């Protein structure tokens, strides 16, 4: 009996070690090594296709920081990310509250419907929206009686991509908020109801503060993903008209896989890495400070 238990324990121990080893190797190969390589590559004139790897110190960073297109792309990225995150939160929370409301029927169907764009491939969605935005036969101009060349007008191109991105992604926030709402303690709501709190007061003083960790989670994950967004740009505008829809990840893609300047692309990636890191830390700091003052 003892021998069997010992044998079982050894099996579990081996499986545990093997799993941990697998995870370590996986992250080592696909996370730690690429990050190290990007750091090292950012200081080299690097084209892996012809084994070019010459040390250039901080030249790539100097080139990037003096390139007006980098700053333009950075501005566009910030505009794109913050606007998309804002509407993702507003729409996601609004719809989650509606779905959670007692009077709403067909909750499961709506939940599925709202989540559907999120699981649809971005490439397919981008193509469909390109057709919707087409100035000749696009549905959007026809339905709203507009005459806008959405993707070829610098004034509208980036907002048009943002609208598409919000449409595609709000379902994610809805589902996360729904999970958050379901986990809120009911006794607090009962107490508020006994005290005669209105719906608005309940939302402002109970729901919203209690959903803070959920909101923070959505903001951080969304910001990280939007700072790295480029597929919709690549398909819908290729950064145009001119360079008006260049975002930082599209510029990195362009440098690496069109011009094969992996050194410059790595320098941009490191800067982006730093910016995302700072934003995340700031977000944590702001939230924890507000939490402690209450």
């Amino acid at each position, binding site marked *: 009996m003892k021998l069997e238990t010992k044998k079982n324990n050894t099996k579990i121990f081996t499986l545990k070690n093997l799993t941990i080893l697998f995870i370590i190797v996986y992250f080592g190969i696909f996370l730690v090594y690429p990050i190290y390589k990007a750091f090292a590559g950012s200081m080299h004139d690097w084209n892996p296709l012809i084994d070019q790897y010459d040390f250039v110190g901080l030249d790539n960073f100097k080139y990037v920081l003096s390139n007006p297109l980098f700053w333009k792309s950075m501005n566009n990225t910030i505009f794109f990310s913050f606007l998309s995150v804002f509407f993702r939160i507003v729409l996601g929370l609004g719809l989650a509250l509606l779905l959670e409301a007692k009077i709403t029927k067909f909750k499961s169907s709506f939940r599925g419907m709202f989540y559907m764009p999120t699981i649809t491939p971005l490439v397919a969605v981008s193509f469909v929206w390109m057709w919707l935005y087409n100035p*000749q036969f696009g549905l959007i101009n026809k339905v709203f009686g507009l005459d806008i060349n959405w*993707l070829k007008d610098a004034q509208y191109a980036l907002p048009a991509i943002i609208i598409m991105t919000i449409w595609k992604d709000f379902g994610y926030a809805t589902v996360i908020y729904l999970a958050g709402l379901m986990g809120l303690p009911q006794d607090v709501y009962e107490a508020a109801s006994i005290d005669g709190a209105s719906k608005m007061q309940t939302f402002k003083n109970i729901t919203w503060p209690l959903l803070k960790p959920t909101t923070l989670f959505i903001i951080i994950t969304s910001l990280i993903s939007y700072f790295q967004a480029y597929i919709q740009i690549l398909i819908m505008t290729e950064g145009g008209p001119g360079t008006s829809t260049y975002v930082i990840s599209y510029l990195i893609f362009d440098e690496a896989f069109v011009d094969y300047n992996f050194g410059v692309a790595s320098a941009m990636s490191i800067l982006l890495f730093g910016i995302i890191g700072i934003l995340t830390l700031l977000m944590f700091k702001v939230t924890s400070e507000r939490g402690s003052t209450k």
Partner: protein
Amino acid sequence: MSKITKGLLSIASILSLAACSNTTGEAEELVQDDNPDKGLETFGETIQYDPNKLVNEGEPISIEYWTWGETDPINKLAESYEEIYPNVDIEVSIQPWDDFWTKLPLSLKGEDGPALFNIHNSQHDNIFPYLAPYDIPVEDLQADFESVDSHVIDGEVYYTDYLINSGNIYYNKTLWEEAGLSEDDIPQTWDEFTEVAKQLTKYDEDGNIIQAGYNFNGDISAIYEGLNYQKEELLFNEDGTANFDNSTTKENFEYLTNLYEKEKVGSKDFGDDSSMSFGNAQTAMVYKWGWFLGELNNNYSDIDFGVFATPTPTEEVPFAYDRYNGESTPGVNKNQSEEQQAVAQDFLKYILAGEEYSVEGALSLASFPSKKSLVDNPDVLENPVLKALSPRVDRLIWPGPFPATVETTATQVMEDILYNGKDIDQALSDGQEQMDKDMENAEFNSLQSSYKFFDELN
């Protein structure tokens, strides 16, 4: 434990299967070839190929050929070569264009890369380190093919042009007749072109365009390089830097924007794809390169279209009619084994000595063959695009495999002017700055000076 191992092995085999690319043909059973007498005649002009021999001493051998094109004529020629030499298998692997230029160099680094591969000269810098020189003497290549001179590197040829591709004007014959135009109205100069384009444009009651006379949306800067060359303005300076911000570029960009804004023969808002617009009979004329013929035949077979040569500033013969780019002959992998390279070199000689490779390629890619013996080939001249190109082939200039920024930045500049309303002088100046920055470390030497009529330049 054994279950885990099995599981990991299953994942590994699924991943390895997923990594496979599309290879045509089935694995062939190769046989020993003991018969050097194939009963076939030696063929070719200067480059001659004698099939009566053994390849790889008759021992079975399989080599790989990588291409991005379904219509690559080598797909067909590999089969005819295999018929002559039953001990040889040329496995054609078709990779999508987007992956081709990252997969190929990485594969060529090792010893198992393809022995032969399709080349696009825009990727010269990334491919050149892996190329073996052709076994065919340079003077033989020069005797049989045009434009070999610009491909000689240190006395060797690693690939050359077997087709010459350039632009023409495609026009919709039905819309042409509806406007009361005949073959005699085909414009020779840009002024005449503007007038014809006006006649071909239709508007609705509110003055909106419902049929464009000329449309360049989605292909906005393709034509400016040719227009500059027509006016003796080179794309590159002697030191290899871009010559973009100049009065000729300005003049030509203004001409193009005026076609839309002043002459109203098209509009930046009239769809975003001139190819599709032409295919749907909403546009009467477009400037496109040879690939467009295949696009029309495959996707818009109902359109009755014709092709005429790109107009010129005056009726005088210009310095050059347009820029051309070559479709390249295959490259041989210098990292492959000697046996594989030897078969690859023999296959190269086989395709370059014959005419089928050039004729098939010319017809499928609507590009003019650079093989001198095909200048008057009736099959080639029957093709409408090649018929239009034929009298001008000599006066097309190749600037060399220049960095991508020259085209991408020019497109951005033109979009900035047309769509973003940017001042033309500022846009050109910014474009020049961007090109200079991008080309700072590029080792690019323009081949403009090897153009046959370069001395005519004032």
